[in-house]
């Protein structure tokens, strides 16, 4: 671990890293507010050209989901801040609700007057110190955090707090960072994306080693190729025989890798989840070496027709758990639906056509004779109209719709238009009334944008879902205006709102749930439109919801 460097201690070492934390804070600020992609790219490239080597590595780590584990809890940060500024806890809570971000709230509450003369420190210094204090006493942690706050301006404090508390949601995708790195290193973006993926430790690696061609490890997944939702009619895509259609499944996108007799399972979020799915472990012995399959991790089981897909809610019981019990394995069995082959015989196959990759994949999956790994079935169709009819039956097999892939398509990096499209079925909808509202966070801070909706049950209202999206900014502004004038409570996070505004809620699926009062849990609920034409007594009933559960929730 780095020690704090003092002046003159080592004449060969630069006493300070120019830019350090303040450079990083400036980058975060400009990324957070710039409205043009090119400006963001420019800011990132500029950072990668001038920042210190270790800072660059941490920058990549943070923006690719490799943040060190949280060593100080949010509760402690809040406590220390309150001690420092001498304010009551309820007032801190009010501020937090208005700002919508704990790190920012604290950074705004600490007054500038307590700033001590500043010793410029690097980004990696702070991160590595945060890792170092993880096992230390609360007193040591407190001293470190408070000293850091005192030495920083508001922007730096905000960024420092963010390093501790969680996600940097600042409108920068991993893709954008990859593009900036590509610009600076003059490597193709796909190469950069691959090199910074997989298992690597920001503490141990250097910037040049990370991006060097020798950086390969057996676990490394390929960057996923993602599809956009189709715009317009499929007929505009051209001749049907140039396209391959598959069912779209609602699971976790994943890659299964077998290299040098080891098995790795990656989620799309670049999380290594091998241990969570013992169902796949047999592949270590069964798959030929040097193979990478792309597919969907799904809750389901073998059936007479091949396989049966269970609702996503089942899979949720398997995520976020360290140890999987026998009971869970039985109640929420998991299968893998393979739809692409990215590596075969240790060779990158992504430049081959979809058709070639598919043919090879079919052979591999067939040879497994497995009750856990299945080939994604192709949908036969001769015309777009025929496919449209087949697509209507998707919900009956717990599918979300259809995936269209051009037979000649290579496997690209990231979300791209042109060769792959999602063609989802229309969502289910229900009319409901808003009964609770909460303020949002991030760019929705201090606006009531998070709502709870209810259906009728006789003369009672039964809450059944929350929804956060689907309205335009202007509509959110109108609802916010309504909430601020038609709610009961003055303090605290939740406002009970006069049940007056009716919305149509769209969702992808419905499942039984004993955790919810209504007895149902919805998949991807969102507001599809504001029914200004409807009165609260015209909304749907709990009975309607239960019928939907009966029809689609099995």
């Amino acid at each position: 671990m780095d020690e704090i460097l003092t002046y003159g201690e080592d004449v060969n070492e630069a006493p300070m890293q120019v830019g350090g934390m303040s450079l990083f804070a400036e980058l975060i600020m400009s990324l957070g507010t710039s409205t043009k992609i090119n400006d963001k790219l420019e800011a990132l490239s500029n950072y990668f050209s001038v920042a210190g080597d270790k800072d660059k590595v941490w920058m990549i780590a943070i923006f690719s989901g490799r943040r060190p584990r949280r060593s100080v809890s949010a509760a402690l940060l809040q406590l220390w801040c309150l001690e420092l500024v001498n304010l009551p806890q309820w007032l801190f809570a009010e501020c937090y609700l208005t700002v919508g971000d704990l790190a920012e709230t604290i950074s705004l509450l600490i007054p500038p007057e307590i700033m001590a003369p500043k010793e410029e420190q690097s980004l990696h210094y702070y991160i590595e110190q945060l890792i170092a204090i993880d096992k230390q006493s609360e007193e040591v942690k407190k001293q470190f955090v408070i000293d850091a706050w005192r030495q920083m301006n508001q922007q730096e404090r905000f960024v420092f707090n963010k390093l501790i508390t969680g996600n940097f949601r600042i409108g920068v995708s991993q893709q954008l960072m990859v593009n900036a790195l590509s610009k600076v290193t003059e490597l193709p973006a796909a190469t950069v994306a691959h090199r910074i993926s997989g298992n690597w430790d920001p503490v141990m690696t250097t910037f040049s080693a990370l991006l060097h061609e020798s950086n390969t490890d057996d676990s490394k997944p390929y960057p996923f190729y993602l599809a956009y939702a189709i715009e317009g009619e499929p007929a505009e895509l051209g001749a049907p025989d140039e396209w391959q259609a598959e069912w779209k499944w609602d699971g976790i996108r994943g890659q299964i890798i077998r290299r040098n007799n080891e098995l790795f399972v990656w989620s799309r979020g670049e999380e290594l989840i091998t241990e969570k799915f013992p169902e796949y472990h047999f592949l270590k012995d069964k798959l030929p070496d040097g193979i990478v399959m792309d597919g969907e991790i799904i809750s389901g089981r073998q059936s007479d027709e091949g396989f049966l897909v269970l609702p996503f809610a089942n899979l949720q019981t398997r995520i976020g758990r360290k140890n999987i019990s026998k009971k869970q394995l039985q109640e929420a069995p998991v299968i893998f639906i393979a739809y692409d082959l990215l590596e075969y015989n240790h060779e990158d196959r992504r430049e081959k056509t979809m058709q070639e990759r598919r043919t090879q994949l079919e052979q591999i999956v067939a040879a497994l004779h497995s009750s856990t790994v299945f080939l994604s079935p192709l949908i036969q169709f001769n015309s777009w109209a025929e496919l449209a009819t087949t697509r209507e039956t998707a919900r009956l097999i717990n599918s979300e719709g259809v995936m269209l892939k051009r037979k000649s398509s290579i496997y690209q990096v990231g979300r791209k238009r042109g060769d792959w499209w999602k063609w989802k079925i229309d969502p289910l909808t229900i009319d409901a009334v808003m009964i609770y509202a909460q303020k949002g966070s991030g760019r929705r801070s201090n606006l009531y944008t998070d709502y709870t909706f209810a259906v009728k049950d006789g003369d009672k209202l039964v809450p059944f879902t929350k929804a956060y999206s689907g309205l335009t900014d202007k509509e959110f502004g109108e609802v916010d205006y309504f909430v601020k004038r038609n709610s009961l409570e003055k303090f605290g996070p939740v406002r009970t709102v006069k049940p007056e505004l009716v919305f149509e809620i769209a969702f992808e699926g419905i499942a039984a749930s004993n955790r919810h009062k209504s007895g149902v849990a919805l998949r991807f609920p969102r507001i599809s439109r504001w029914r200004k034409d409807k009165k609260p007594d015209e909304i749907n009933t709990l009975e309607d919801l239960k019928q939907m559960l009966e029809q689609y929730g099995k």
Partner: protein
Amino acid sequence: MALIQFTDKGLYCAEGNFYIDPWQPVDKAVITHAHSDHARWGSKSYLCHTFTKPLLQQRLGDNNYETLDWGQAVLINGVKVSLHPAGHIIGSSQIRVEHNGEVWVVSGDYKTENDGISGEFEPVKCNTFITESTFGLPIYNWKKQADIFIDIQNWIKDCFEKNTNGVIIAYSLGKAQRIIAPIAEVTSNIHAHGAVWNIFQTLKNTGFNFPDIKRIEIDAPKEKYKNAVIIAPPSAEASLWMRRFTPFEVGVCSGWMQVRGNVRRRNIDAGFALSDHADWNGLLQAIEATGASKVFVTHGFQSAFSRYLNEKGIEAAEVKTEFGNDEEASEELKIES
């Protein structure tokens, strides 16, 4: 009976039979300042500060106006009324009302930092103080005006370096007058939306000095705007009207810019937390300086702010008014799409 009561027409002094900033037409209205949520149409007579009168004339037309200078007192039905600088915008005043030895002060909108043009906020001793609370949370503490001006100047220089115009969104009455001098230190190529230009014109006719700005004409050729600063009111933000300045960046001057989410939500290039309202410490200092034993908190974070005052041992209560719909206070409720 309380010297000032909260009625459905507004703050009412029964002894003097006058209202302060009424939101419905009354016989006699005493006006704190010329923003539209405080000075409304339809009353039979208006009493206001000398600088406020021409602004009211511009907005409300000819009426029966009487004026006072700061510190000058007048008796209305035996109640002594005087105006004192509130530091919010040009002409803005606190209203001091005295009867039988009891003193109430209505703050209107105010800020405690001297902006150099609105007059310096004067703490007025009173028994009861009616305060605004637009920014009544401790997350709102402003940087010094001089530092924010440097930020604005640097942003303009950046715009010019990129060969883009800089559109600054600022309230036509208040913020626009504050920022004009620092802008003029960077460039003389300054243009203003008609609404902004009109206010400048009125104030110039009253005897105020401001750097020269050009009014934006409806059909001006596009080439006219090159390395220019444009001052526009919030209603112009994200409107078609702005297109003529392309390429341009947008910077917003508003206290709400203190919080990142507000900057990001509006999809603007820069936010400057420059406000004409008191910040948290400003509110607390102002209240302390009045020595008031009772405080009424109006428009803003009145629930939280009055609760905090009570916990600090200052008797406070929140009051519902129809203030807080001026451009800055209402801005968080209004999102331009």
